């Protein structure tokens, strides 16, 4: 795939590495028992440990360790039997301890890979450097008061997994696909809820540009992006900015940037201009974290089907294309919905492709309009299955089916009830349809003559008129057949 971008003078290649911060799905925080719930009142989920009261000490959450190991396995990565928690020292208003407990030299998870699939059927491996556990900081609110920053410590101490990629990514699209893929893997594993809006998955982007084949250039880091759209925008903007500087003879200075979502521009952070010196050292309040190979094996055996495995299963079992199968597996909620739909009726086994189409086009359209997750869809999987069965058995046409789906979405009723109540059942009685066609042809004699003299395109017009008279209920196949027979007869009789 050619990802080169054209500057004023040269072609350039982007070199991108991502640091993803994925919030571990757990009830309580990494080193304290406060709740991790989102959206509570400020400072209501803060323990003495989270507020760094004097003499308070961290005790690690067993489940968060398991979640990190699970995630590591999902990223095809090496699980380290020995890892160490270090303190990363810096001052910030929402960092109560004055340090973040993280893992520096010895992370819990080592090197791994994830695969991203392109629409053209090709794929690419992105190497993972490491995954480590660390504490989240609290939240600073800068816009509540003209002279104050407010601090809420509810997030302080929530477990994060920082997943660091190698600089293997070459375009904003690849970056987006990489994030979607990681998100999907973590959601299948149930180790992260993947909710980017709520900040459960955030990215820091390291980006540089180079002339193809050259050494890596100086990079800048764009901090704290929480949507794939913004990540792509930020990468595009930053790459262009760097190319402009380089082409006009300038040099890139290594910088930490912020992305302004309303202007679409990046700018250097004001408060981090001084050189970082985090003074990492092993946290003396904690001992090294040891995980036996047996524990790792146990976790491994408990791991559910991962997106790539499921994708292959869909392709093999249902004969779905790579693209359709990967769309279904971008999100566990989607594949769960698909599975429930196709398993709701034996007769649907051969209708995988139709089900995919109905989910990814019609149902997604309705859900997206209202910003509803598929797991909360008012249309249940079994009802969608019934709808597709009605289409398959010619009870309703595809067009009517869309109307029925709208109604199902609004009322949560079953398609059979809706069809019955509204009298939407398809007209399949040939004599009835024949009468209507006769009617149409009689009313449009001029058009019929034109058709017979070679204006084939008018066929559609007759179909339309007939459909209109049946309010769309005529079986299109039967209607077409009868119409064609009649017109052929007329032609012969001329």
């Amino acid at each position, binding site marked *: 795939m050619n990802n080169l971008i054209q500057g004023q003078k040269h072609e350039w290649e982007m070199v991108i590495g991502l640091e993803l911060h994925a919030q571990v799905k757990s*009830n309580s925080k990494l080193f304290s028992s406060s709740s991790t719930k989102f959206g509570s009142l*400020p400072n209501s989920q*803060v323990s003495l440990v989270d507020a760094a009261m004097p003499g308070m000490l961290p*005790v690690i959450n067993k489940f968060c360790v398991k979640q990190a190991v699970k995630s590591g396995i999902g990223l095809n990565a090496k699980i380290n039997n020995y890892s160490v928690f270090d303190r990363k020292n810096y001052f910030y208003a929402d960092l109560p301890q004055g340090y973040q407990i993280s893992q520096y030299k010895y992370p819990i998870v080592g090197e791994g890979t994830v695969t991203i699939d392109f629409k053209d059927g090709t794929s690419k491996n992105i190497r993972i450097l490491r995954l480590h556990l660390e504490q989240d900081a609290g939240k600073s609110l800068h816009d509540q008061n003209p002279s104050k920053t407010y601090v809420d410590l509810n997030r302080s101490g929530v477990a994060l997994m920082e997943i660091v990629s190698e600089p293997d990514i070459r375009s904003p699209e690849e970056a987006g696909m990489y994030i979607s893929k990681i998100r999907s893997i973590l959601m299948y594993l149930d180790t992260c809820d993947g909710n980017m809006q709520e900040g459960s998955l955030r990215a820091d982007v390291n980006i540089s540009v180079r002339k193809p084949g050259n050494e890596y250039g100086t990079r800048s880091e764009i901090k704290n992006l929480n949507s794939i759209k913004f990540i792509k925008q930020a990468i595009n903007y930053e790459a262009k900015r760097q190319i402009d500087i380089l082409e006009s003879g300038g040099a890139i200075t290594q910088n930490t940037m912020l992305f302004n979502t309303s202007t679409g521009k990046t700018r250097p952070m*004001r408060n981090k201009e001084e050189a970082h010196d985090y003074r990492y050292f092993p946290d003396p309040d904690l001992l090294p974290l040891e995980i036996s190979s047996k524990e790792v094996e146990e976790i491994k055996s408990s791991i559910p089907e991962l997106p790539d495995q499921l994708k292959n299963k869909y392709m093999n079992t249902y004969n779905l294309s790579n693209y359709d199968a990967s769309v279904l597996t971008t999100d566990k909620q989607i594949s769960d919905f698909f599975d429930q739909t196709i398993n709701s009726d034996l007769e649907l086994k051969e209708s995988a492709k139709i089900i995919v189409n109905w989910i990814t086009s019609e149902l997604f359209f309705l859900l997206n309009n209202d910003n509803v997750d598929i797991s909360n869809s008012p249309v249940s999987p079994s009802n969608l299955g019934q709808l597709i069965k009605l289409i398959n058995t010619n009870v309703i046409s595809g067009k009517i089916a869309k109307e029925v789906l709208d109604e199902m979405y609004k009322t949560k009723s079953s398609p059979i009830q809706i069809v019955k109540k509204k009298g939407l059942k398809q007209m399949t009685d040939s004599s009835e349809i024949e009468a209507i066609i006769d009617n149409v042809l009689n009313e449009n004699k001029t058009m019929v003559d034109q058709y017979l003299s070679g204006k084939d395109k008018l066929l559609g017009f007759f179909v339309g008129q007939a459909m209109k008279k049946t309010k769309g209920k005529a079986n299109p196949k039967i209607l077409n057949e009868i119409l064609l027979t009649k017109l052929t007869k007329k032609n012969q009789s001329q």
Partner: protein
Amino acid sequence: MKIDKNTINKIARLSRIKLDSKESEDYIKDLNSILDWVEQLNEINTDNVEPLTNISSSVLPKRDDISEDIHSSEEILKNAPEKIEGFFSVPKVVE
């Protein structure tokens, strides 16, 4: 001399401690003499020695993932020098 004015300023800045010029001078002197004194550790060959981080020989204890919010925000904010509307508050930060 290991610590000069620049170094002491850098460390003071990293530690977020404001020093007046008299203090800076005193600490330059103190830190240099302490660092010279600890220099004697270099007499020992530690090539194959594992660093000792904690004397405890037991394994890291882990807790169950049970959540409980037992502290009210009033309790957490009780000793705060400045609080507004349930938040800690600090001078405005421009990022």
